[in-house]
């Protein structure tokens, strides 16, 4: 359904994560606290079931993205918590980052009110500062790190080819349910929750930017991909549901949107690339 909110949230309408779809979490992970750098969790390539990102169409009609086994291409270390306001402000002070539009008075809160461009600027600055290679995680990397806290986007409904409103109404009902249980408080980093991998703060009031561009995938009746197109400039933000947000947006929420539930706040965490270990293989 075309709307103003859609423009801002991009594919946010169809990107709704709310179900109990089992996500098998088999990746090996360990927490490292060595050195002065941020606390990180290592993610090794190991296949896991994942509801793919993107807007999927089967024979021209929107459908749930398929669930497939995916494997991240190489081992990485992901920050155990989102970048905090205090950490981000160091980049602002250095003149390498723009001021966030979120609160700046509490250093321990996750930084919010940052655009994808801001997050990328921070990654570049932080890489220079540390001499390491830091970047935003991909959708699959973020999902693997989120582990059992990752929320499935699937609506799980039987589509009615003769009635597009069936899906719109199902989406709307699910968004309403999601809204009911939403926790809107921004809590200090590390305090919201922690999963089996030691990754904190998944799915609260802060959505996190990824390096994954919004893509549209067209399939035939069998699900075979006919065409795929990327919209880089619109990126996937992960949280209670996946949202597609334009790269310059810092404040995704609007008072009373037309349709679709926008993310509450935008923040991020980074991953550090590691040398690939022998035996780790495959790609998403």
């Amino acid at each position, binding site marked *: *359904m075309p*709307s*103003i*909110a859609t423009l801002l949230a991009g594919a946010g309408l169809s990107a709704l994560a709310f179900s109990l779809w089992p996500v098998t979490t088999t990746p090996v992970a360990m927490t490292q606290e060595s050195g002065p750098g941020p606390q990180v969790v290592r993610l090794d390539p190991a296949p896991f079931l994942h509801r793919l990102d993107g807007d999927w*169409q089967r024979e*021209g*009609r*929107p459908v749930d993205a398929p669930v497939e086994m995916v494997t991240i291409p190489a081992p990485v270390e992901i920050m155990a918590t989102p970048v905090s306001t205090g950490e981000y402000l160091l980049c602002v002070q250095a003149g390498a980052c723009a001021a966030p539009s979120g609160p700046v008075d509490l250093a321990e809160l996750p930084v919010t009110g940052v655009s994808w461009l801001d997050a990328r600027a921070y990654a570049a600055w932080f890489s220079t500062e540390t001499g390491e290679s830091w970047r935003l995680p991909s959708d699959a990397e973020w999902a693997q790190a989120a582990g059992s806290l990752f929320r499935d986007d699937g609506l799980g409904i039987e589509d009615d080819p*003769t*009635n*597009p*409103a*069936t899906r*719109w*109404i199902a989406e*709307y009902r699910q*968004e*309403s349910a999601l*809204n*009911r249980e939403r926790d*809107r408080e921004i809590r200090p980093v590390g305090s919201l929750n922690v999963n089996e991998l030691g990754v904190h703060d998944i799915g609260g009031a802060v959505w996190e930017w990824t390096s994954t561009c919004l893509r*549209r995938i*067209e399939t035939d009746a069998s699900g075979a991909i006919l*065409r795929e*197109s990327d919209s880089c400039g619109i990126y996937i933000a992960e949280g209670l549901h996946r949202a597609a947000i334009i790269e310059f947006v810092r404040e995704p*929420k*609007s*008072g*009373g*949107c*037309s*349709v679709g539930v926008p993310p*509450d706040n935008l923040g991020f965490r980074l991953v550090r690339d590691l040398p690939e270990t022998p035996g780790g293989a495959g790609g998403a």
Partner: protein
Amino acid sequence: MTTLPVSRRTILAGAAIAGALTQVRQAAAETKEVLTPAVATELTDLPRVKVKLVDPPFVHEHEQVATGGPKIVEFEMEIIEKKIKLDDSGAEYWASTFNGTVPGPLMVVHEGDYVELTLINPASNELMHNIDFHSSTGALGGGGLTQVNPGEKTILRWKATKPGVFVYHCAPPGMVAWHVVSGMNGAIMVLPRDGLKGREGEAVKYDKVYYIGEQDFYVPRDEAGNWKTYDSPGESYEDVVAVMKTLTPTHVVFNGAVGALTGDNAMTAKVGETVAFVHSQANRDTRPHLIGGHGNYVWATGKFNNPPEVGLETWFIPGGTAGLMVYTFEQPGIYAYVNHNLIEAFELGAAGHVMVEGDWNDDLMTQVLAPSAI
């Protein structure tokens, strides 16, 4: 948060409220004097019906075409001052309400009926209140006869002689604007006895009716830009008036809060159902629009002795007016009902949703090519 270290008692004695209290004393004298002849009026032959009001967006049960002659329709409303949450960003506001809701409930009577309202101002309130019915005749719409101090009640009867949807609101002298933008307004629908009629005299009937009360709020912020909160309405008065004078609302919402008519609270309809939307704005102009639908019959200024406009895209309701739109849904889906100043709709809150179930009509709309690469 900056709050003044004063008690409710201090506030009551404070400058902001002293004016209101003085007015109460004047009003009490005035009321007794004027009410005397009214009591003598002979209406004993008319049947009386008692209506239980319901919270917006819903509307109490009523006949569209009146059976029988004029009645005395009894309503009771309690005035409740309460702190309400306007959005998810922490904005709170000391609302003054008719019956506990913003807007107050929609009342429905027929032309020629008598409206008899019992208005109660409980002792737990801080302020004096009254009610001005735009649909009534005389005494500042009844405002001059209904000023009640906390701990008082009053009964006003007036004859509904003008058919239409009309705003009612609180109007205590000197503080009218503040009370109105504190949520103290609602609407009454005076239906023609033989029901609504289109331009050719055809009957216009509805399967359901929703009442949307649009409200502009003016919430003060502190130096750091955070919403200020207060311990009582009186304490907020001066700050709120300062924001009001900017004529720039911080919120423009339907039914008292951002999102009050969305999600779980979205309005509902079915394809083929005819829905009447009563829309009031007691203070500011608005321009309702149903995204994906139309206004089949629209009384933008709300008065049924004028023929309705038909087939509209957007209609203009001047501040201080209620309007009526009637639409029969033709397609399923999620519709947005908005103030089509889209900044007010999507940035300040004036948007609601209608979830419509039914069969899709390919003739009316078909996606010939789903969005795909060029």
